[in-house]
């Protein structure tokens, strides 16, 4: 006859097994409508790789966590007082080989995780350029209180709280801030990278699909932090070029005077567009925190990450 506790244990084990199978299925073929999940609803190679990494590492750890937890609850249940025929208060004090295994088991898993760690730290390094057919599009980003300014140096246009990006073209974002530290994050493309005053950090992303995504700040930088969002619109190359031409034709120039109007804190700014940009503006923003006067800004700051 099977005891109640054994039935309980079997149910637990079966549930665990189902969980693992579901996890595996999830990796290869989403079944749970996770397209709602920003992180797993990847629209680009970086976010997709990051989502895969999360699931893989999670499954690796389940290999040790499930047996330990199962054993833990099983043992606690089995040896509760009154039910134990083989109480042995000295058990385990002499079993040297057991101690070897209990170290070896977690060490083994962590070795795997460490390999994963090292490889992913390099392959998913945000500073690493993405190789695709076309040359990368550079977008300079300035985090302000509480809006995002984007400068397209190649196209000589600028926008606020909105970017248009061509599909399948690597994007190179250069981030700086004229506000307390902010974090640049587009969950569906990958993330995140800090934007800091007087420094330039870099992150490379790419969208392989068209669509509209939300970008956001994920580091508190004052009152308007929660509303510091921007829209990312991924379209075809042709649409992108048309958009650029439209912005160029109809919008004012972003010079120092216009920029200074952006500096005072404000929230919920509607998207704004600038048809041309003062070529020194971005460097001046970076340099104003590293030297007494912005006139000294002639070179790119030392902490430039490529």
């Amino acid at each position, binding site marked *: 006859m099977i005891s109640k506790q054994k039935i309980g244990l079997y149910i637990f084990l079966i549930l665990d097994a189902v969980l693992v199978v579901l996890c595996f299925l999830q990796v290869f073929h989403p079944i749970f409508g996770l397209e709602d999940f*920003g992180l797993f609803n990847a629209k680009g190679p970086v976010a997709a790789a990051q989502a895969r990494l999360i699931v893989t590492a999670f499954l690796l750890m389940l290999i040790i966590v499930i047996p*330990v937890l199962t054993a833990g609850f099983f043992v606690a249940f089995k*040896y509760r007082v009154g039910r134990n025929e083989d109480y*042995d208060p000295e058990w385990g004090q002499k079993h040297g080989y057991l101690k070897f295994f209990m170290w070896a088991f977690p060490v083994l898993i962590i070795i795997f995780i460490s390999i994963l760690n090292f490889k992913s730290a390099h392959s998913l390094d945000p500073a690493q350029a993405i190789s695709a057919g076309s040359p990368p599009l550079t977008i300079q980003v300035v985090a302000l209180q509480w809006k995002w300014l984007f400068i397209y140096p190649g196209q000589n246009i600028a926008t606020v709280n909105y970017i248009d990006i061509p599909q399948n073209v690597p994007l190179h974002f250069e981030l700086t801030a004229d506000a307390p530290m902010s974090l640049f994050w587009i969950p569906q493309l990958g993330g995140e990278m*800090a934007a800091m005053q007087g420094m330039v950090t870099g992150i490379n992303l790419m969208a392989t699909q068209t669509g509209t995504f939300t970008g956001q700040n994920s580091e508190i930088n004052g009152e308007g932090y929660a509303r510091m969002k921007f829209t990312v619109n991924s379209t075809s190359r042709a649409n992108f070029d048309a958009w650029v031409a439209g912005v160029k034709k109809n919008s004012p120039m972003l010079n120092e005077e216009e920029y200074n109007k952006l500096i005072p804190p404000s929230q919920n700014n509607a998207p704004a567009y600038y048809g041309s940009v003062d070529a020194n503006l971005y460097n001046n923003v970076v340099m104003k925190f590293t030297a007494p006067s912005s006139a000294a800004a002639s070179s790119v700051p030392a902490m430039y990450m490529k």
Partner: protein
Amino acid sequence: MHFLLGNLTLESLPHEWFTVAGTATLILGGLFVGGLLTYFKRWVWLWKNWLTSTDPKKIGVMYIIVASLMLFRGAVDAAMIWLQQSIAVGAHNGYLSPDHFQQIFTAHGDIMVFFATMGFLFGLINIIVPLQIGARDLAFPFLNSLGFWLYVAGAILINMFFAFGGQFASAGWLSLPPLSEIAYSPGVGVDYWIWSLQISGLGTLIGGINFIVTILKMRAPGMKLMDMPMFTWTSLCSMLLVVSVFPILAITISLLWLDRYFGMHFFTSGFGGNPMMYVNLIWMWGHPEVYILVLPTFGVYSEIVSTFSQKKLFGYTSMVVAAFGITALACLVWLHHFFTMGAGSDVNAFFGIMTGVIAIPTGVQFINWVATMYKGKITFISPLYWFMGFLACFAFGGMAGVLMSLPGADYQLHNSLFLVAHFHTMIVSGALFGIFAGITYWFPKVTGFKLNESLGKKAFWCWLIGFILSFGPLYILGFLGATRRLDHYDAPGWQWLFITAGIGLLIIGLGALFQVAQIIVSIKDRKQNVAGNDPWNGRTLEWSTKSPVPFYNFAIIPTVTNRDQFWEDKQAKTQNLKPKTYSDITMPKNTAMAIYCSGFIFAAGFAFVWHITWLIFVGLIGAMVCVIIRGLDEHTEYTITAAEIEKMENIKP
């Protein structure tokens, strides 16, 4: 006027609903307690028997009481956060302004870490460590009292903003610059933050030194290091971390203060300041701080598992090695808090791997606990329930932590609600559950009677279910792309998850009510629940002395030849043998100097916040004079004669 009051003006007095409410609560609470004390004529009793006591057991109890109050204070913040997040979606802005919301989560984080969890831990360590190592007192009784009163001064100062100034820091619990610099946070909030942390941190540092000396120098004769109970070991590890990293915290926030007070440029945006240095320094303290909180409770769990399994701890040596492994590694992982700040991939990989490696000793501890239960005789009572709850939750929290140690994954998870869920899992199930388990476990030792078991179990189930409901949704929200600290969000799909989390908090609140009821009922029924000296068939020295423990702990200092000395004595039937003769005992006298001293330091802290120069000097010089007077006092101890001890020992409880 400015000379007299610094920056204080009429404007600083409460005039908003929450400052008025906070101030009224403080004043009414004070009046209520004062009234009770006057009515029952307990002022002198309170002063003589408790406040001025140098007895670590009493100081420990006071720590736990203050920490409970601060836990309640932090929980009110948590409830306000959840209420805001449950309603502030789309067109709704919620009932809090963004700035007020940011003050609340800042205060919540600091209060829970510095004043609730740390207070509970210092309470438990104060009560139990001397008993476990067979000592009568700490190495420096006065410093212990001073450490406690500095902690209280910090706890009061962090609440003073209700009455004066009306605003707390709103830059997150670590107040990262440049946001916390005067340019972006011109008010007094960050100053309150700096000085309450600085003062309580000083208390923590003093306590750390005290416990290291106590554990290393004052063990009972014969007790080798490898004979120490696990709780003492992990407390030692925790205190080693305290003395290693709290100096860094002290310097870091001092530098921030110099920036704010004197206009220096350590972390400012311009003038060559380097905010990234602050981030590095604060996390060099901040990460080990997590282990300072969690290590002692690992010790509590070890004690509980072994006691309630009626079995020797499996792999004692491995446990000690693992605890030290965690201690050492804790200092090598701080950079994983900011993989996203643009360090090179090799640097990120190094810190990521080190973080993953911490999972090894932690995993070993887990396996050891399970192996300890194997072939045991397990009594399921509430301390063990807390342990099982911890086992289940902490494993998943740990997995979440290892996930985020992968820089590649952290780029997506950093500062999301996934992170918030992760560290709450670690602190609530790791530290808080262990604290509750420890309090239930050692309660009879301190008071002489057990806590009500059925209410304890109800409290546990509420906490566990409430906890899962509160933080489960936060993991999911993290995956959905929700960042932390949102006073408002646009995605309507998130709202039900936030509401679920709020319901979880209500259930936790119910659990807390059960705990309060548990204590009240247990005190009422104390006659039925008399515990005796050794209610759980314990293993370590604290169970060999009387319950409640006499102020001198042990009439005769025990001699130790074994791990689990008391258990071995019971096996050999040599426990509690009446000694042939007693000898005189020297004990420290009570002292009020610690209260005066921290009172002056509190005044100085308040004066620093408000730039009241004369009061700064009065506070600092006063505190120094107190310490000098105490140092010159030749008569800090008194002797109890052997005859008196014998008389007290022979009273039947």
